[in-house]
């Protein structure tokens, strides 16, 4: 008897493999999109960190000190002075054009005032419409100006005859050491890629699952599909989806190899836990795909739903804007996304390297997604037999 079961699944499997070869769409969906995204995201973020963003300068003083200030600013990690401007209006237009993300205005007589202790101000104008660029530049420019003031302070205090051992305590009474837990280099691509690879995978799995089943309804071949599986719908489903499970688990493993092997992103616990999460994740995504096509066994409608559901997946991962800071009713939606639970495991295991028991709940929820297709099992089976849904 088990032999017979296996051979039925085998027959469905062979049928599916033949279908996969029959048109390019299968190849594009399973391997094409994912390969493109690997190449795109890796090369797009290849710099790792945002550096040398364009900054403008309005130097009304044009003295030795102000020029020194510009050179110092240019030498910082994030800023590069790309243009000298003559007035505020021009600078603002350049900012509106997107040619500079910040500019600095040094007033006339700056160095004279500084030397005669008249506290001349320096003004920084930042554009936070491009938030990442703006906040990084602000951080860099503030740090530099603190350093500049620090130098002047030391000089003055020494001149006043203050004891050398007391100077640091006066210049900076309290200092801060900041530590980034698990991600010491503040590498930008680390953030993005660890979410985008699984995120794109989720999207592709949903589309593929909906497509491979939906196309049977659209082309009215679902009875043939059932017949191949000897009219056992569960075996028909297993035989159909198994090849994709295998392909996507391989792609998921490849993501992990790229992230933690090739790109050397921090992995603070065993790779095993990430691979296990990947396996659960792939199956959970397929289950959601089945739920969608089972609820609406019409290819074109299901594809639209995947589109809407899938795009919000990136939002509800909670890595850009944290979930618990979103408005309350919206927050609930994060639970219906496998990627949210995968992301929790990633944060706990790879980033924070905490004990596995903290992630236990997320693994269980991922596994629980497998129960979802039970809701639509008979509905989908009926649709396969009676073909009672419109093809358009």
């Amino acid at each position, binding site marked *: 008897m088990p032999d017979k079961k296996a051979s039925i699944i085998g027959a469905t499997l062979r049928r599916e493999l033949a279908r996969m070869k029959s048109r390019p769409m299968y190849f594009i969906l399973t391997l094409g*999109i994912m390969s493109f995204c690997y190449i795109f995201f890796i090369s797009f973020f290849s710099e790792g960190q945002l550096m040398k963003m364009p900054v403008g300068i309005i130097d009304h003083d044009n003295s030795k000190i102000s020029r020194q200030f510009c050179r110092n600013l240019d030498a910082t990690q994030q800023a590069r002075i790309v243009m000298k401007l003559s007035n505020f209006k021009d600078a603002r237009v350049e900012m509106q054009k997107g040619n500079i993300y910040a500019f600095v205005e040094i007033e006339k007589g700056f160095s004279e005032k500084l030397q005669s202790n008249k506290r001349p101000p320096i003004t920084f104008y*930042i554009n936070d419409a491009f938030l990442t660029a703006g906040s990084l530049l602000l951080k860099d420019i503030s740090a530099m100006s603190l350093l500049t003031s620090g130098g002047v302070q030391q000089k003055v205090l020494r001149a*006043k005859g203050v004891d050398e051992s007391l100077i640091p305590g006066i210049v900076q*009474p309290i200092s*801060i050491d900041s530590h980034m*837990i698990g991600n010491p280099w503040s590498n930008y691509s680390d953030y993005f890629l660890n979410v985008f690879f699984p995120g794109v995978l989720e999207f592709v799995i949903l589309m593929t699952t909906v*497509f491979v089943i939906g196309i049977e309804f659209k082309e009215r071949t679902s009875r043939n599909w059932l017949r191949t599986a000897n009219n056992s719908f569960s075996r028909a489903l297993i035989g159909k989806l198994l090849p994709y499970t295998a392909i996507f688990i391989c792609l998921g493993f490849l993501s992990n190899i790229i992230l933690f092997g090739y790109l050397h992103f921090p992995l603070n616990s065993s790779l095993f836990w990430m691979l296990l999460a990947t396996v659960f994740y792939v199956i959970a995504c397929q289950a959601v795909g089945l739920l969608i096509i089972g609820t609406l066994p019409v290819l074109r*409608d299901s594809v639209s739903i995947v589109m809407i559901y899938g795009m919000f997946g990136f939002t509800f991962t909670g890595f850009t804007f944290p979930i618990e800071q*979103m408005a309350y009713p919206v927050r609930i939606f994060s639970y219906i996304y496998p990627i949210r639970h995968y992301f929790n495991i990633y944060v706990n295991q790879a980033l924070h390297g905490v004990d596995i028991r903290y992630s236990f709940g997320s693994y269980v929820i991922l596994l629980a997604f497998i129960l979802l297709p039970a809701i639509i099992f008979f509905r989908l089976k009926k649709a396969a037999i009676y073909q009672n849904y419109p093809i358009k």
Partner: protein
Amino acid sequence: MKITRFPRIKRLKSNIKDTFDIFVNEMKMISHDRGVVVIFILAVLAYPLLYSLVYKNETLANLPVAVVDNSRSHESTELIRHLNATPEVDVFSTYSSLYDAQKAFNQRLVNGVIYIPEDFGKNINTGQKANISVYCDMSSFLYYRTVLQATNHVVLDMGKDIQVKRLGEQGITGESAKIITEPVPYNDVVLYNETAGYASFLVPAVLILILYQTLFFGITILAGTAREENRFHALVSSSVHKGKTLRVVLGKSAAYFIIYLAWSIYVLKVIPQLFSLPHLGDSIDIIGLVVPFLLASIFFAMTISVFLPNRETGMLVFGIFSLILLFLGGVSWPYYNMNGFWKAFGWIFPSTHGIQGYIKINTLGADIQTISKEYHTLWLQALIYLLLCVWAYHWQIKKSLANARVRQMVSHKREIARNESDEQTNTTKNSNAQS
């Protein structure tokens, strides 16, 4: 003169009528197709609302942090009190060891740990430099920024008071103390998106993408359906085009353009005001940008749709492009710092220039002259994609005409054959009758 002018006007009239017929026909196709209605109407209506709602809270507030107070001094208590008073963070709990705080962090109860070492109070009282450590949750960049911002703020404030006191001990007061505490006062002025809001930063780009992608998917669905329903897998049925490509392209695109011009006002003007996102842009400038943006997007989508065989192909293959186009738009990774190849690749898509142009008008208050680069690029794209679209449709129409001709020939031959066989039977009948 009259004689030569008259037929020209007549021809022009009939051309306009043809174009109008195609326009009406396309409007019918749109309204009768459930899938397209969902995309063209429902998605454009709901998506901007959903995105704005999700990101309604622009910045993080009351972020829970753990404090490890090993100093247990008057000064450390003051630091904690100040920290708790910031809008950004809330002190979740005070722990006696880093180990305990780490446990709370591992359970994800707190998003940061602030460690005050034993010598903190002593250092402040003896005129030494004191130090604290901040450990930040890096699972989101916003955690890091918010926790650090709050502690920086508190530490700078406390530091100023200590500075004044210490200078006083050295006999330096008044103006000269001021000179030492802040020899170069620096003002940072955030010109646009002053609150550093996340929605103000992301949603404008998403709004443009919603217009762009729904337009793209709607057009590919319509083209795929036309192809599926046509007997010869041709994009345009011969009853519609009558062999005239330009009329087909203009008639169809006019239908999309009119629908989306109306939507643009809702998406790009009403939504930002409704959710108090930045809306510095002048309506005329926005419309000035939207016209070439929509034309370029429509012709681009129509060109691509020629190569997509089925109704769902567009969404299956290009669904994930929504995300990629967001990055190519140069918002989260600044356009200036983008890798040269991807910059060039991004240039192809009207959405890139649409996003840049719209943010500059809407968020930075630029006018159409200031964004002339985006404006002219979009017009250039509109022209290029119109030409490509006409060429692609022409190719399709020729194909369908050829198919029709083949069909005609086949049926004609059949008819001849039938007639011949009829004649034969007739002759045989006749001969039979004769015999």
